[in-house]
């Protein structure tokens, strides 16, 4: 490239800086949004992966009804694929700090698995020390005494060998990465955090559980990990069962008081924080997969229109250079460099800005729930190369494409002005009924809109894109809000779920109701239990509920849209919609269910009901008995204004779950979605501005003489502005209308991309979201029009008319 072409390039950039900026901005926006969202999931998963690996998050947890002995634990440790097995004790007990008693979960400080970290202070080293939950305690609490309350039951108190502790640190635990600490049978039923103490502070001769860590690990939430777990689970459960049964068999017959011991195996999936974190990253990934594609499309189109306009304007210059003997490639080089450099800069700022800013926004949003570690930035080089390649290809391609045609012409043709566009009648003129109603100037606008087809197409695409993004963004919020509202107001109608530690026959049930002042219609007793639904690759956990009566409408409102569902007959089940989708089983087909003993039964699906969280099967008590064996009424769903504490005082009650608490919990975690919605709105606005501004700008420069002419004719500033900008409004109306439809589709696409197993996001979008999206689109157009108003005002008539195009 010689000096002259370099100078010409720089001058082109300087004199058409808004055009250069348009390419820069749209590329930056597209790349930034895409890379930022793409990397967000990775950053989130990486942060958790690092954290879990460092803290040695468990792979399996074994629980037995008779506990485990140190020898058994050592045996498990020796299993071939097991790296470590570590005993763990946990006990729910009321603790007292500052003269206030609250329920805590007391955990033995591990040495190998599920290591807690001290965020302030340090880990306990002697028997009188403890580390507490930094979600519930602050640094000021360090040094204060915390003791096991003497109001605990004798059973609980006898579990401790030491009751008085000093807090030496606050911290977090990989077992509790979300704000959730779970429920308890104590106090108001909600745990106020964990307390880590040394194992010898517990008196228990047996361990309540054994955590296992596999020798090999995989990436967090990966398919490989799931498969590894599946492969190991039965082997390990069997080994543990054998050990525990051997001990049971060894004890003499007369000392056997209990039933045969049971062994349960849990995986990370049953850990609340672990599962929820995965869901949240999936939501982010779902959004990342759909939205940015659109931005790329618009970016490419902006590049094409901008470059063809530039080539159009510089036809004569190109002709002169060709006439002087410059080669076509050296002339094209200027445009290639112009577009390429703008795109390169855009990519640079977009990529690094995006991967820096967007994960941060998302991290802040999700930090309300999770704050186990700092965000760590990483550069995803394949992603960087991919976005760079797309940016350069589309910009350089656009430049090449735009000047290719012109440079094929002999220079003499370039020097002659372009043949004017032929005037033609347009389609709307043929619709006499509408056409007659328009004023003259409105007709002119309609004709202009229809005449500049490329611009119309681009503008409608950009504007509809903006509206669609807004609709989808607000729609995602709707889906989340609706999820909570529908599930906890519409489907689950009860106030509390009560678990009993002994089966409730009708006598016991009546007594329970009397004692708690509950009427028949306030209580629904049910058989319930967990089952697995085997799918092709893995299985889903679901809850089976067999209500004692068929009158369940005031506890569970089972319906599909407007249609109420009837109680299932023998051998039949009502299942929730997500389960029906996941298992691919609709009304009339058979669903395969695996009970806790591993036997499979087939149930005929008699109906599918709307449900948003978790999987449920409703069956009749008889079906339950037939399919799942020993049916014991151990659950009641009740309507009450009473307190949890009152219910908990009843000796047979083992736990109480308050629906409102769960609702709040889910609602809080879903608040993070607002930040994402804001991000989408901002990006949609940026998209609308870039497209509208750029195209209106092109429109104005293309029609400078026309605008100058009408100004000479005596159009006032406002009239002249509306002469041109009315077209923007018309295109906005079309674009917004198209966008509302597109948005509906986009929303459905995003919602379907969110692969959360046990949540169902509705694709309904509220009227308000549509209205708001359309209104915002008009606001964006209005702002661009305001900016353009002053630009139009500055057009100098005499000068604009002097030039011949």
């Amino acid at each position, binding site marked *: 490239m010689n000096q002259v072409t370099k100078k010409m390039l720089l001058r082109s950039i300087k004199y058409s800086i808004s055009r250069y900026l348009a390419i820069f901005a749209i590329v930056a926006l597209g790349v930034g949004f895409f890379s930022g969202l793409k990397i967000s999931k990775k950053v989130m998963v990486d942060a958790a992966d690092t954290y879990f690996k460092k803290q040695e998050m468990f792979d399996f947890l074994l629980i037995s009804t008779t506990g485990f002995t140190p020898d058994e634990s050592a045996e498990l440790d020796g299993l071939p694929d097991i790296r470590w097995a570590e005993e763990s004790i946990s006990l729910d007990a009321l603790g007292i700090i500052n003269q206030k008693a609250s329920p805590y979960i007391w955990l033995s400080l591990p040495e190998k698995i599920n290591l807690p970290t001290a965020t302030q202070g340090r880990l306990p080293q002697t028997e009188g020390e403890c580390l507490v939950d930094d979600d519930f305690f602050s640094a000021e609490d360090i040094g204060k005494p915390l003791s096991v309350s003497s109001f605990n039951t004798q059973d609980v108190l006898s579990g401790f060998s030491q009751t008085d502790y000093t807090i030496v640190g606050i911290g977090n635990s990989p077992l509790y990465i979300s704000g959730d600490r779970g429920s308890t049978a104590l106090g108001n039923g909600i745990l106020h955090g964990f307390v880590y103490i040394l194992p010898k502070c517990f008196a228990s001769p047996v361990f309540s559980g054994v955590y296992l860590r596999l020798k090999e690990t995989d990436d967090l939430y990966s398919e490989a990990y799931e498969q590894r777990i599946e492969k190991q689970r039965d082997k390990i459960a069997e080994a543990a069962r054998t050990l525990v049964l051997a001990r049971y068999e060894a004890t003499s017959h007369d000392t056997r008081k209990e039933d045969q011991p049971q062994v349960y195996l849990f995986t990370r999936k049953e850990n609340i924080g672990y599962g929820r974190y995965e869901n949240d990253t999936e939501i982010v990934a779902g959004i990342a997969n759909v939205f940015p594609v659109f931005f790329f499309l618009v970016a490419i189109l902006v590049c094409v229109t901008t470059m063809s306009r530039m080539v159009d304007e510089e036809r004569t210059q190109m002709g002169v250079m060709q006439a002087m003997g410059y080669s076509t490639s050296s002339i094209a080089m200027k445009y290639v460099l112009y577009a390429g450099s703008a795109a390169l800069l855009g990519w640079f700022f977009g990529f690094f800005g995006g991967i820096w800013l967007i994960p941060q926004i998302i991290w802040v949003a999700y930090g309300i729930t999770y704050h186990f570690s700092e965000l760590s930035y990483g550069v995803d080089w394949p992603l960087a190369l991919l976005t760079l390649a797309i940016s350069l290809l589309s910009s350089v391609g656009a430049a090449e494409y735009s000047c290719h045609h012109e440079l094929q012409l002999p220079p003499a043709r370039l020097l002659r002005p372009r043949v*004017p*566009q*032929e*005037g*033609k009648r347009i389609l709307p003129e043929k619709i006499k009924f509408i056409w007659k109603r328009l004023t*003259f*100037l409105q*007709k*002119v606008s309609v*004709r*202009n809109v229809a*005449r500049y087809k490329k611009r119309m197409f681009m503008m409608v695409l950009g504007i509809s894109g903006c509206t669609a993004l807004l609709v989808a963004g607000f729609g995602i919020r709707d889906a989340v809000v609706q999820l909570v509202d529908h599930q906890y107001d519409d489907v689950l109608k009860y106030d509390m779920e009560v678990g009993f530690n002994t089966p409730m026959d009708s006598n016991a049930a009546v007594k329970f109701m009397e004692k708690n002042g509950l009427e028949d219609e306030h209580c629904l007793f049910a058989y319930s239990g967990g089952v697995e639904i085997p799918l092709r690759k893995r299985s889903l956990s679901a809850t089976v509920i067999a209500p004692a009566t068929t009158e369940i409408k005031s506890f569970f409102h089972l319906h599909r849209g407007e249609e109420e569902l009837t109680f299932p007959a023998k051998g039949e089940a009502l299942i929730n919609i997500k389960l029906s989708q996941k298992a691919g089983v609709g009304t009339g087909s058979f669903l395969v269910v695996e009970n806790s003993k591993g036997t499979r039964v087939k149930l005929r699906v008699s109906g599918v009901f709307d449900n948003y969280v978790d999987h449920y099967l409703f069956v009749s008590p008889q079906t339950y008995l037939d399919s799942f064996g020993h049916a014991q009424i151990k659950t009641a769903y009740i309507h009450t204004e009473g307190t949890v504490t009152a219910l908990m005082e009843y000796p047979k009650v083992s736990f109480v779950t308050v629906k409102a608490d769960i609702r709040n919990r889910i609602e809080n975690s879903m608040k993070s979605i607002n930040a994402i919605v804001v991000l989408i709105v901002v990006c949609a606005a940026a998209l609308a501005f870039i497209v509208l501004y750029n195209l209106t700008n092109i429109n104005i420069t293309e029609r400078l*003489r*026309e605008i*100058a*002419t*009408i*100004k*000479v*004719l*005596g*159009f*006032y*500033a406002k*009239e002249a502005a509306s002469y041109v900008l009315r077209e923007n409004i018309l295109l906005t109306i079309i674009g917004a209308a198209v966008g509302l439809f597109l948005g509906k589709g986009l929303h459905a696409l995003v919602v379907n991309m969110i692969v959360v197993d046990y949540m169902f996001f509705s694709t309904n979008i509220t009227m308000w979201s549509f209205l708001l999206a359309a209104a915002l689109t008009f606001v964006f157009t209005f702002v661009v029009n305001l900016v353009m108003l002053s630009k139009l005002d500055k057009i100098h*008539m*005499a000068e604009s*008319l*002097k030039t*011949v195009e």
Partner: protein
Amino acid sequence: MGNKFIQLQDVKKEYQTGEVCIQALKDVTFTIDKGEICVILGASGAGKTTLLNLLGGMDVLSSGTIQLEEKLISTMSKKELTSYRRHDVGFVFQFYNLIPTLTARENVEIATQICRNPMNPDEALQLMGLGHRSNHFPAQLSGGEQQRVAIARALAKNPKLLLCDEPTGALDYTTGKAILKLLQDISRKQQMTVVIITHNQAIASMADRIVHIKSGSIAYCKKNPDALPVDKIEW
């Protein structure tokens, strides 16, 4: 002289481009009477277009005064100037400046839409002999026809003052002559004041007043009592 229609007094126009200041007009003083045809002559770059733009309220002067009847144009605000162009002035340009997306009739209509007592657009086109082409787009018309549409557009506003900047510059001899004849006929018939810029000395003989500009100043301004009809002029 009784009916001074336009009066210019010490008109000066400077263009400031960066460091350099170009004086396009200085000490321009002359008058035009009502109903006159005034031809402005001068070499390229003399300042003719600048003068016409000032007369038409398309640009503002650096100093001096311009008056049209009682209206002081030189002190008008932007909005008043627009209003002046809208109601009192008609423009005809060398390159027609028709709006390519509008038909001939619509190009006239866009002007009549906004003024007080316009002619019927069809009438204006008929006057220019283009009644049968009113539904054609500019691209479907010849240069001369396009210029006639442009004149129809200017006339349809019923302006007090018609300003033409080299109206025949892009046309051949006969077409140019026909255009000039139209302008002369209208001026005579409707007592309309017409200002025509031209390079062509010969055209000057059709005018009632001839103004010659030489590098920004008036070389002479004289009345021509025996203006010839355009048919009689040859060049």
